[in-house]
C-alpha cells in the first residue's frame, strides 16, 4: 500500500499528467478497442470505430484547451506551441483518415479490429514524436510509428501488391532508422552520455569534434529524410503508396510526414546551430531536387496514387523552404501554415479517390474520364482539392504557397523560390490534365464507369445535407477547409508565429 502510494506520488511529481493527457486518452481508447474486440469476437465493428473517433475527438479537445494555456514542461516532454500544434495536426490526420476507412470495412468485412488498433498506435507514435526531446524517446516513438505503418500497409493480406509495399517499407524504414540510430550514438558518445537534447548541446564541444558532428548530422539527415521522402531518399514512396490500400496511404502520407517534419526541425535547429550554414545548403539542395524530380515525374504517371506520391514529394520540397526561412520574428509560421493546409488538401484528394476505387476497382487516371456525368459532387470536390494542391487562387493552396514564398524571398532563398514557382506551374499542368479528363465528356465512357453506382446514401443535390456516409463528411470537410482556409489565414498565422526555439 505504502509502495503504491509513494510510487503514485513520485509519479505525480515527476510527470505532469495533464501534459500527456491526450496521449493517455488515446492509449485508453486503444486498450478499449482490443478488449471490445476480444469480447465481441469480431462482430459489431462500427462500435470499434466509434470508440476510436470518440477518443481522438476527446484528445483533440483537450489538446486544444492546452494550446490556449501553455503548461510547464518535464524532462521527456516539452510542451510549447510548436509541439502542441504538431500533435494537433496528427490528431486531425487520424480523425479524418478514420472517417475514410469506415465504408470500406463495412463492405469487405475483413479483420476489423487490427485496423483501428494500428491507426491509433501510429497516431500515438506520431504524437509522442512531435514532443520528444530525448534521444531515446525519439527513437522509440519513431519506430512505433514506422512499425505500425508497416502493418497498416500490409493490412490486406490477400493483395500481393500490398505485401510487396509493406515489405519494401519495412526494409527501407529499418535501414533508415538504423542510420538515424548511428547518428544518435555518435551524439550520445561525444556528449558524455547525455540523451536529453538540451544537455547534448551543452556538453558537446563543437569546435573540437566538428568532423564527427558533421558525420552524425549526415546520418541523422539520411534517417529523417527517408521519412520525409526527400530526394534521394524518396524511392520507397511511389511503390509503397501504390501498393498499400488507399485509406492507409491517406493516413500515413500525412501523418508520418507531419511527424517527421517536427522531428527534422527540432533536431536540426537544436543540435546543429553551429553548422547552420552547411545544413542550410544541403537542405536547400535536397528541397530543390525534390521539387524538380517530384513534379517532373508526376507528369508522366498513369496511376493516380503514384502521381499523388510524386506530388507529395514535391510538396515536401516546398515545405523545406519554410524550414529554411525561419527567423526570429515569424518562427516556423510559414511551414506550419502550409502543413496545415497540405493536410486538408492531401486528405481531401485521397478522400475522393477512396470511394472511387472502391466502386470501380481501378486507380488508372484514364478511368476517371467523364466522371462529371456520373457523380458531380465527387468531381467538384476533387477538382477543388487538386486545384488547391496546384496553388490556384482563391483556394487555400495559393495562400499557403504564397506565404511560403514570401518568407523564402524575404530570407534570401532566391533560387529555391524561383525553382518552386517554376515547378508549381508544371504541377498545374498535371493536375489540370486530370481535371480536364474528368470534366470533358468522352464519347464512349470507359467500361468501369458504366457500372458506376452512386452510394445509396448520397443525395445528389448539394443543398440537402443528408450525409449518412462518413466518407462524404470527410470529403466535404476537406473541400471546405481547402477552399476557405486561405481566406481566413490570418488567425492561423498568428497562432503559428511563436514557434521559434
Amino acid at each position, binding site marked *: 500500500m505504502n509502495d503504491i502510494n509513494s510510487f503514485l506520488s513520485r509519479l505525480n511529481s515527476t510527470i505532469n499528467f495533464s501534459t500527456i493527457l491526450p496521449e493517455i486518452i488515446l492509449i485508453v481508447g486503444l486498450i478499449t478497442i482490443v478488449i471490445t474486440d476480444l469480447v465481441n469476437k469480431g462482430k459489431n465493428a462500427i462500435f470499434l470505430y466509434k470508440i476510436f473517433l470518440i477518443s481522438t475527438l476527446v484528445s483533440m479537445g483537450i489538446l486544444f484547451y492546452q494550446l490556449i494555456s501553455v503548461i510547464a514542461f518535464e524532462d521527456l516532454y516539452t510542451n510549447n506551441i510548436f509541439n502542441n500544434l504538431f500533435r494537433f495536426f496528427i490528431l486531425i490526420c487520424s480523425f479524418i483518415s478514420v472517417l475514410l476507412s469506415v465504408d470500406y470495412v463495412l463492405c469487405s468485412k475483413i479483420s476489423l479490429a487490427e485496423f483501428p488498433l494500428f491507426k491509433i498506435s501510429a497516431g500515438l507514435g506520431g504524437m509522442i514524436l512531435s514532443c520528444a526531446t530525448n534521444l531515446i524517446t525519439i527513437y522509440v516513438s519513431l519506430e512505433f510509428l514506422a512499425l505500425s505503418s508497416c502493418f497498416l500497409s500490409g493490412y490486406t493480406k490477400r493483395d500481393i501488391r500490398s505485401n510487396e509495399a509493406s515489405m519494401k517499407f519495412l526494409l527501407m524504414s529499418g535501414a533508415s532508422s538504423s542510420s538515424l540510430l548511428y547518428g544518435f550514438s555518435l551524439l550520445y558518445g561525444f556528449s558524455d552520455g547525455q540523451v536529453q537534447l538540451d544537455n547534448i548541446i551543452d556538453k558537446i564541444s563543437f569546435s573540437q569534434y566538428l568532423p564527427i558532428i558533421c558525420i552524425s548530422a549526415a546520418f541523422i539527415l539520411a534517417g529523417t529524410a527517408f521519412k520525409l521522402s526527400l530526394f534521394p531518399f524518396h524511392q520507397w514512396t511511389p511503390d509503397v503508396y501504390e501498393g498499400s490500400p488507399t485509406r492507409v496511404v491517406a493516413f500515413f502520407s500525412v501523418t508520418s510526414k507531419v511527424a517527421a517534419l517536427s522531428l527534422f526541425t527540432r533536431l536540426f535547429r537544436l543540435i546543429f546551430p553551429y553548422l547552420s550554414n552547411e545544413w542550410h545548403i544541403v537542405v536547400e539542395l535536397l528541397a530543390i531536387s525534390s521539387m524538380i524530380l517530384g513534379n517532373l515525374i508526376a507528369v508522366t504517371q498513369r496511376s493516380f496514387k503514384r502521381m499523388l506520391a510524386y506530388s507529395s514529394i514535391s510538396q515536401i520540397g516546398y515545405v523545406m523552404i519554410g524550414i529554411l526561412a525561419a527567423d526570429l520574428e*515569424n518562427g516556423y*509560421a510559414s511551414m506550419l501554415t502550409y502543413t496545415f493546409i497540405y493536410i486538408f488538401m492531401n486528405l481531401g484528394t485521397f478522400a475522393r479517390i477512396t470511394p472511387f476505387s472502391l466502386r470501380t476497382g481501378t486507380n488508372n487516371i484514364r478511368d476517371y474520364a467523364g466522371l462529371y456525368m456520373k457523380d458531380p459532387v465527387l468531381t467538384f470536390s476533387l477538382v477543388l482539392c487538386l486545384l488547391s494542391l496546384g496553388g490556384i487562387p482563391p483556394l487555400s493552396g495559393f495562400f499557403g504557397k504564397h506565404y511560403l514564398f514570401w518568407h523564402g*524571398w*524575404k530570407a534570401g532563398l532566391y533560387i529555391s523560390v524561383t525553382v518552386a514557382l*517554376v515547378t508549381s506551374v508544371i504541377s*498545374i499542368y498535371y493536375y489540370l490534365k486530370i481535371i480536364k479528363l474528368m470534366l470533358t465528356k468522352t464519347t464512349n465512357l470507359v467500361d468501369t464507369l458504366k457500372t458506376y453506382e452512386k452510394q445509396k446514401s448520397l443525395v445528389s443535390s*448539394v443543398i440537402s445535407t443528408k450525409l449518412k456516409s462518413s466518407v462524404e463528411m470527410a470529403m466535404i470537410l476537406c473541400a471546405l477547409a481547402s477552399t476557405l482556409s486561405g481566406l481566413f489565414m490570418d488567425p492561423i498565422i498568428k497562432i503559428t508565429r511563436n514557434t521559434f526555439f
Partner: protein
Amino acid sequence: MINNVPWLTTIVFFPILAGLMIPILSSDGNKIIRWYTLGICLLEFSLITYVFYCHFQIDSQSLQLLETFSWIDSIHFRWALGIDGLSMGLILLTGFVTTLATLGAWPITPNTRLFYFLMLVMYSGQIGVFVSRDILLFFLMWELELIPVYLLLSLWGGKKRLYSATKFVLYTAGGSIFLLLAALTMSFSGSDVPSFDIQDSIDKSYPVSLEILIYIGFLVAYAVKLPIIPFHTWLPDTHGEAHYSICMLLAGVLLKMGGYGLIRINLELLTHAHFFLGSGLMLFGAIQIAYASFISMSQHNLKKRIAYSSISHMGFVTIGIGSLTDSGIDGAMLQMISHGLIGAALFFLAGTCYDRTRTYLLDQLGGVATTLPKLFTMFSIFSLASLALLGMSGFVSELLVFIGVSTTEQYSFPFKIVITLVGAIGTVSTSIYLLSMLRRMFYGYRLVNQSNSYLIDLGPRELFILICLFLPILGIGSYPNLILPI
C-alpha cells in the same frame, strides 16, 4: 453619406456571389439560368454606371473610391481597392462586353449552369484586376482568370480545344511567375517595412539596375497577356478554338489587362526603367503591327484571321505606352477601349457566321451576301471600324498614338520615322486583309454545295448585340471628348 458604402467591393463581389446561387436554380430549362445570369450582368453593369455617374469626378487626378481592409496582416496583404480614370474606362468596357457576351452565349446548350457560373466568375475577376491597388491582390485576380478560361475553353471549344487550353494556361501561368517575383522584389527592396500597396511603392525609389530587372519581370507577364511578340503564340490557338462569346471576353477584356498592368505598374512606378526600355517597347509594337497583319493576310481560318488582327491592334497600345508622351498614352487607352468593342464585335460576327454555315474556312464561305444581308452589313461596318475608318473610334486612337510617336522628344528623329513608317505599313495591310476577307466571304459566286435552308439571317438578339457594340464606336469616333478627359 453614400461614401461609406463600399461600392467597389460590391462591384467585385456581386457577380461571383450571384454565381454561387446558380446551383440552386432548377436545371430543367436552360432559360431560367440564362435570364438569371443576364439579369445579374445587367444589374452589375447598371451598378457600375451608377457609380461612375454619381460618385466619380472626371476632372480629378487622384484615386477615388478608395477602400482598404486589412486582410492578412502578417504579410501586409490588404484588400485595397481604388479607381481612377484609366480603370474606370476599362471597368465600363468590362461590364459592357461581358453583359453582351452573356447575351451572345444564348445558343449554348450543354452544361449551361457551369458555363454561366464561370462567366460570372470571370466578370468578378476582371473587375477585380482593374480596381486593385495592392500588388498581391492584383496578382491574385490575375491568376484567378486562369481556371475559368481553361474550363470554358476545354468544355465548349472547337476541335483543338484541349491543346489550346493547356497552352493558354501554361503560358499565362509561366508569365505570372515573373509578376510574382518582380512584385516580391519590389516590395522588399527599398524600405524596411515590406509593403505591397501601390501608393507606397510610388514613393519609393530604387537603384536603376534593380528597377530595370523588376521592369523586365513585370514586362514578361504583360507581354504574355497583351500580347507582345514573341509571346503571342497562345493567342491564335486560344481564340481560334474558343466559343465566340468567350472570344469576346478574351479579346475584349483579358488582353486589356496586360495593357492596364503596363500603364499602371510600369509607367507609374518604375519610371526610370521605362525611359530606358520605352524605345524597345515602341520597336516591338511597330513590328507587331506589321508582322501580325502580314500573317493575318495568309490565314484561311476566319477566326484566326481576326485573332491576328487583334494582335496587330494591340501593337498600337504598346507603341503608345512606349512613346512617353501624354497623347501617346491617351491613344493607347483609347485603343484599348475601342479595340475591346471592335474585337468583341468581330468575334461575335465570326461566331454567328459559323453558327449558320458550320465552317470557318474562308474558301468555303463564298458569296453569302445575298442571303445574309444583315450579317454582311454588320460585318462590313465592323471591319471598316477595325481598319480605322474616319468617324470610328479606331481612327482617333491610332491618330493619337501616331501623334504621340511623332511629338516625343525623347527619341531621335530617324527612329521616330522608322516607327511611324512601320506602323503605317501595318495599318495599310490591315485594310488589305480586312477587305479581302470581306470580299472572299460575301462577294463572288456562291459555291455549289451550299444548301440554302440553313442560312438564316441574323436574328433580333444578335442584331441587338451588334448595334450595342456599334454605337459607342461611332460615338467615340465622332466625339472623342467623351472618353478622353478620363
